[in-house]
């Protein structure tokens, strides 16, 4: 097949054969990867600015207003526009797939990706046009500081974030409505049974009965373990959305009063109390839903790849419950440098409970590795490679954060590049995204009706460039943090030049990897197919019937 033919028609992709669930999933995936490209370019701009005066970028990128407006939207586009979209799309496909029930509403799923896409675009426009730049932390009263920012920019930004949160609520409703629907295999289940299973209480009772030498409480739990993880993680997604939306409403009220000529007193809101409230919610993204969703995804991928039951499944179910409780009580590790924060909260929430994440994430890593090990020999497929890459990512990133969640270490690491690079970027780029790429390779034949990937060589190049680039960028950035480089600061004189150049080289590898991945996908589905994904589906089905066991057969040597 010629290049032109491939580019237009893809390999063997036929968008007309896709049902409504497949199409809505792919729409969100496409938007997610487009936003990923945007966030990678933004990241590279910031990285290049930090290399010093000899950087090749136009001077405007080094202006504080411009630089910090990029820094403000970078996490919004990355976390919400890209990651949320991809995760929500995967889960709105997986829940029907795993429960063998239709998705509650395709219309609502369409609303979710559209709302998040428009919301992210609005937030980006607010930063680009009006240079609204209070950063994602929104530390009070900076987002309402109209001496530094245009009021209209703030209003557009908040409306954008609110739309993202509305889309998030749509996802949550769709997931729970699907899980609690008493149809198919759940026809005879009560809401109570589904709730007990969803919270992992059946796993705990099974462990308890085993210790007492009694029969298990439930031999066949109502919900599969990955669905339990989705159920559990979505609780944190909901709480997080409530907090972010309410903070947004607060900022909006102040901005609207300011616009009306009667500004409110920003001192009426206690900055430290606000920080506690906001970090409690924001931390539910990092330490709540991400860790729970990732653990669930690892379990799903390990069982799909091996075709075997998960090692120590009851422990895994119980650990997910523990992770939920832990995620509600760890926010103080963000406030260890705040001297007004009570010492007991720093000690208990910031240090001790946070340390439990080492246990819960370590447990997930162990269970996943043993499940894979027990099924060996396995083929080193792309999905297995990416899964191992994801394990490496979290294996590096979680201890990096636990180390800093300490009153001694925090004094010299808080707000440095250590936490944002060695922890956040490695957790997201390597840990989370490699897990998501693994899921993508597993689900690719199912969601696209067995479309042949254009080039496995390009898939491999993508993997290695991405892994080395992601780890390298995080490592060099982390080293700069140890050398005192701040994370929310503009360095224009090349103060950390060598490490920033190395980080920029690695960042370029990540960007190139993304371009290669995108090229591979476009050559697989073709431009026609890509457009076709956004056309209405002829088959209105909202479920997918392939048995998960079929996937495992593809991985046996």
């Amino acid at each position, binding site marked *: 097949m010629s290049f032109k033919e491939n580019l237009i028609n893809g390999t063997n992709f036929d968008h007309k054969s896709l049902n409504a669930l497949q199409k809505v999933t792919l729409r969100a995936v496409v938007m997610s990867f487009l936003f990923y490209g945007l966030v990678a370019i933004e990241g590279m701009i910031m990285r290049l600015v930090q290399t010093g005066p000899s950087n090749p970028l136009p001077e405007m990128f080094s202006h504080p207003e411009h630089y910090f407006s990029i820094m403000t939207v970078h996490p919004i586009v990355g976390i919400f526009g890209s990651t949320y979209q991809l995760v929500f799309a995967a889960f709105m496909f997986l829940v029907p797939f795993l429960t063998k029930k239709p998705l509650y509403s395709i219309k609502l799923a369409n609303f979710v990706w559209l709302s998040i896409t428009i919301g992210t675009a609005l937030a980006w426009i607010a930063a680009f046009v009006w240079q609204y730049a209070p950063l994602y932390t929104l530390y009070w*009263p900076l987002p309402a500081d109209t001496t530094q920012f245009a009021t209209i920019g703030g209003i557009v930004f908040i409306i954008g974030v609110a739309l993202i949160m509305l889309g998030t609520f749509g996802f949550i409703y769709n997931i729970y409505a699907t899980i609690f629907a008493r149809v198919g295999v759940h026809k005879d289940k009560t809401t109570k049974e589904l709730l007990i299973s969803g919270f992992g209480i059946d796993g705990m009772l099974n462990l308890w009965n085993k210790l007492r030498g009694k029969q298990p409480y439930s031999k066949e739990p109502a919900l599969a373990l990955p669905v339990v993880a989705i159920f559990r993680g979505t609780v944190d997604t909901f709480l997080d959305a409530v907090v972010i939306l309410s903070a947004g409403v607060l900022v909006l009220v102040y901005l609207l009063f300011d616009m009306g000529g009667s500004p409110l007193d920003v001192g009426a809101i206690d900055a430290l109390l606000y920080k506690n409230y906001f970090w409690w919610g924001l931390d539910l993204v990092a330490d709540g839903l991400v860790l729970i969703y990732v653990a669930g995804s690892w379990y799903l991928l390990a069982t799909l790849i091996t075709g075997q039951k998960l090692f120590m499944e009851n422990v895994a179910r119980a650990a997910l419950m523990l992770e939920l409780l832990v995620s509600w009580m760890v926010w103080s590790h963000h406030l260890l440098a705040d001297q007004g924060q009570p010492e007991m909260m720093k000690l208990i929430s910031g240090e001790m409970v946070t340390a439990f994440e080492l246990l819960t994430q*370590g447990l997930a890593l162990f269970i996943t590795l043993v499940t894979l090990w027990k099924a060996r020999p396995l083929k080193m497929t792309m999905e297995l490679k990416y899964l191992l890459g994801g394990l490496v990512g979290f294996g590096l990133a979680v201890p990096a954060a636990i180390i800093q969640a300490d009153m001694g270490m925090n004094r010299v690491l808080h707000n440095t590049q250590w936490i944002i690079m060695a922890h956040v970027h490695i957790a997201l780029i390597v840990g989370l995204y490699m897990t998501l790429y693994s899921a993508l390779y597993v689900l690719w034949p199912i969601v696209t009706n067995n479309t042949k990937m254009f080039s496995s060589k390009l898939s491999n190049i993508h993997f290695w460039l991405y892994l080395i680039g992601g780890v390298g960028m995080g490592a060099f950035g982390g*080293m700069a943090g140890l050398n005192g480089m701040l994370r929310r600061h503009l360095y*224009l004189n090349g103060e950390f030049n060598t490490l920033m150049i190395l980080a920029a080289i690695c960042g370029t590898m990540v960007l190139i990897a993304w371009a290669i991945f995108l090229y591979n996908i476009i050559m697989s589905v073709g431009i026609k197919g890509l457009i076709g994904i956004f056309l209405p589906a002829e088959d209105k089905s909202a479920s997918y019937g392939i048995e998960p066991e079929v996937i495992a057969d593809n991985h046996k040597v």
Partner: protein
Amino acid sequence: MTFSNSAELLSFHWVAYSIYSALIISVIAWFGYNLTRKEKAKSIVRIPFYTYIAFLVAGGVGHHIFTYNAIPWVSQDITRHDITPDASYKFQMEKQKWIGLPKERIIVQCGQTIEFDVQSRDLVYGFGLFRKDGSLVMQMQVNPGTDVNGILDSNDILWTFNHNGVFDLRSTEYSGPHAYGEHGEDLLLVKNFMEVKGCKKDGGKK
């Protein structure tokens, strides 16, 4: 083992985390390699499940016990309101400016414990001391706010200086683009803010 300043701690941390990183990457790579092999893999070490869990718990808790005992500023920070400092410096921040900073460079004798109390009249700022090589001596957040009587909230930190050096002051928290000049210069950077004298070459009083 006790760290007498942050430079020693950060060097130790660099080495320890690099070793850990090499270890975890090697373990997963070893797993990946052996997952595909038909031959029985020889385990380098067998780790029973509950030993692994005990190791994680010990690691999580032990890390804090270690730092509490090895990093002197942890206990000092917790009990700072019961400690009388050798000197105190109090100043404020507003509209991306330091207000009331000492006019002369602060001179600290080796081993002295100094209190810094910084108040903010508007936004969240940071207070950080940096060595000339750019590395961080210490820092804290500076939150705005007042008590019921309208008195600005304190953001206080106590620090004992055991090594000679001239330190710069800068805000460690972003307070908006107005904290920078037109060409990106840091308006909150105070060069040569303080100097510590009288220590031995490798730290500690002469």
